[in-house]
């Protein structure tokens, strides 16, 4: 099934334009790659934007160490197939070096700690831009993001003082030590992403399709169970048919009960769903401004 949507074409044209602006305006460039569907779509768009040349970006994964094993295999295979450099920086290293303290307790997550590892990577590799798969429909702080999002020398986002962004003119000028985060699929919604994946036959990790997995429920969200996760006595671990709507750090990525085996079934499911995809993201449930606060500290 192919959805012949004019609006998908326009979103693709816009994203390719943004990718090419990044190529032209920056020097040391990476695509932030998590193995999730949004970053996979970014890689596809980058391929399209520079064909038949190799994309002028490396892939960078900020690895919390708490992964779905399948995404790492997928990541390595993809980088190899593209022939681009894969940079992996470990949150564990930042913890060992005392750069960031590990959270403790039942809800411990390394999600927030990623910001430190990410900013250290910017310094170490002298990166001046990172392309991310953030979308404005995901979350209310993200709704305020620019395509070209300026970060000061501390890597911070200042939402009250963003550069005005008009027409399709993107100002990537910066002083030494400052950098940019660029979000080519800012204007896409979750459904747009899925329809695009279907139209372009983009290969995704199997986690996005239905599979049997051990899960447990916490605060109304189903979480995938992994040996290093602590559960409360009241939290029963059981097996169910599930799929991931988003893939991130396993400790905070919710799963959905689903039997969707194909992209068609997923698109139908997403079109009918009444809960946002971040509704299953434990990291956003911490406070009303959880995302805004993390972004100010240098988060993706």
């Amino acid at each position: 099934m192919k959805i012949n949507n004019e609006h998908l074409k326009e979103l693709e044209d816009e994203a390719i334009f943004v990718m090419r602006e990044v190529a032209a305006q920056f020097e040391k460039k990476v695509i932030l790659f998590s193995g999730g569907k949004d970053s996979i779509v970014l890689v596809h768009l980058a391929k399209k934007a520079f064909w038949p040349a190799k994309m002028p970006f490396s892939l960078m994964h900020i690895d919390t160490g708490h992964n779905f094993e399948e995404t790492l295999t997928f990541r390595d295979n993809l980088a190899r197939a593209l022939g681009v450099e894969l940079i992996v920086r470990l949150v564990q290293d930042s913890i060992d070096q005392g750069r960031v303290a590990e959270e403790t307790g039942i809800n411990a997550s390394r999600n927030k700690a990623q910001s430190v590892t990410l900013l250290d990577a910017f310094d170490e590799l002298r990166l001046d831009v990172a392309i991310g798969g953030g979308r404005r429909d995901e979350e209310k702080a993200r709704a305020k993001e620019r395509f070209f999002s300026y970060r000061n020398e501390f890597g911070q986002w200042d939402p009250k003082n963003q550069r005005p962004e008009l027409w399709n003119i993107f100002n990537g000028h910066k002083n030494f030590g400052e950098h940019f985060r660029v979000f080519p699929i800012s204007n896409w919604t979750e459904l747009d992403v899925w329809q695009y994946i279907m139209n372009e036959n983009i290969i995704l990790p199997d986690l996005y399709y239905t599979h049997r997995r051990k899960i447990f429920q916490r605060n109304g969200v189903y979480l995938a169970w992994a040996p290093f996760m602590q559960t409360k006595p009241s939290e029963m671990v059981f097996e169910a048919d599930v799929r991931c709507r988003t893939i991130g750090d396993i400790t905070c990525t919710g799963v959905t009960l689903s039997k969707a085996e194909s992209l068609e079934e997923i698109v139908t499911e997403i079109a009918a769903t009444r809960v946002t995809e971040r509704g299953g993201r434990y990291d956003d449930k911490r406070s009303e401004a959880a995302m805004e606060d993390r972004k100010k500290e240098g988060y993706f």
Partner: protein
Amino acid sequence: MGEKINGNNKSLLRFTTAGSVDDGKSTLIGRLLYDSKSIFEDQMDHIVESSKRLGKEGIDLSLLTDGLRAEREQGITIDVAYRYFATPARKFIISDTPGHIQYTRNMVTGASTADLAVILIDARKGVLEQTLRHSYIATLLDIRHIVFCINKMDMVNYSEEVFLNIKHELTALDEKLKIENVHYIPISAKFGDNVVEPSEKMKWYEGRTFLRLIETIDIKKIKNSSESRFPVQTIIRPLSDEYHDYRGYAGRIAGGTFRKGDSVTVLPSMLRSRISGIDVMGKFLSEASAGDSVSITLEDQIDISRGDLIVRNDELPQSGQDINLMICWFNEKPLKAGGRYLARFNTNEVECVIKTVNYRMNIDTLERDFENITINMNDIANINIKTSKPVFFDPYKKNNITGSLIFIDAGTKETVAAGMIMDQ
């Protein structure tokens, strides 16, 4: 027009709203999202919870649009927020902007990419200073459709007379501003009258509801469809064995149509060649039009770099170093006559100097100030610049991509102004 309303061939409409705290803008957007089932359960739970915590009566839908902590605390919209919703007919992108004069720059930013502007009017208050301001900005940015929503009709007993009086006043404004396509709809965002469903209380109104209007309005991008314009973003040279000779010029077509075999001129060199191919990731196209991101290959090896413009031989743009334009000033430091800035015309960047400041537009009265003018943040002015080398452009009214530019402070690197090129 016979637009199809089905899942296929869904088009994209971008619209901007400007409004102040009390005119019901957030309620209208909340209503559209709610009635089109674009508010999800977890978002709704969240709004209900926050409304309670902030001690609001009922559910405050504006909490959905105000995304930053400071905005929620103060109950105001500070920056442009983008919202998305879709119906079976169209996908919509809303740029939701604050309406106060001190946020003119945000309104201009939100309006720059819009196909349509929605201007809210409180039926009890009629046409106000801010109506003038919002209408002026919409025309300055050359938005082709303006929809005036006469809101809070429930508070004037759904009176047709009130509506007609306001409409009459607006007609005079439309003539003054030369607005081409205007629509007037009496609504109650609070109760949903004429937003998604036709109003039971205003049977005298026979036009389309707001949603129906924006679903069916013809938004063909007539604006940039005439003359061929291809600003080069970057050069694609694979240097691989398989594509050893491939040399593609990558960019997004800013106007007109290009076809394989077209004779083209490259600016500024004025060298000529013919298009040997147009492709998107190996898929070769016989033609491509405004809005398409493509790679173009030429028959001859000529020197082309980023910022150059490829056009068809018979469709040359204007060129020169002295340019008259309207600007909106964004920066806390005022504009300096004689000041030097970087000017970015789409992908081309040159230095420029501000030659003269001709007048400042008083956007609350639409009068021009000629005396003792300083241009401060949020001001709109007419100026003349001189660029360090010749540039190629069109009047903004003819093409909003080759007719627009931004000014960048070479020291701080900030975007300090946006410019729209006038007829020279």
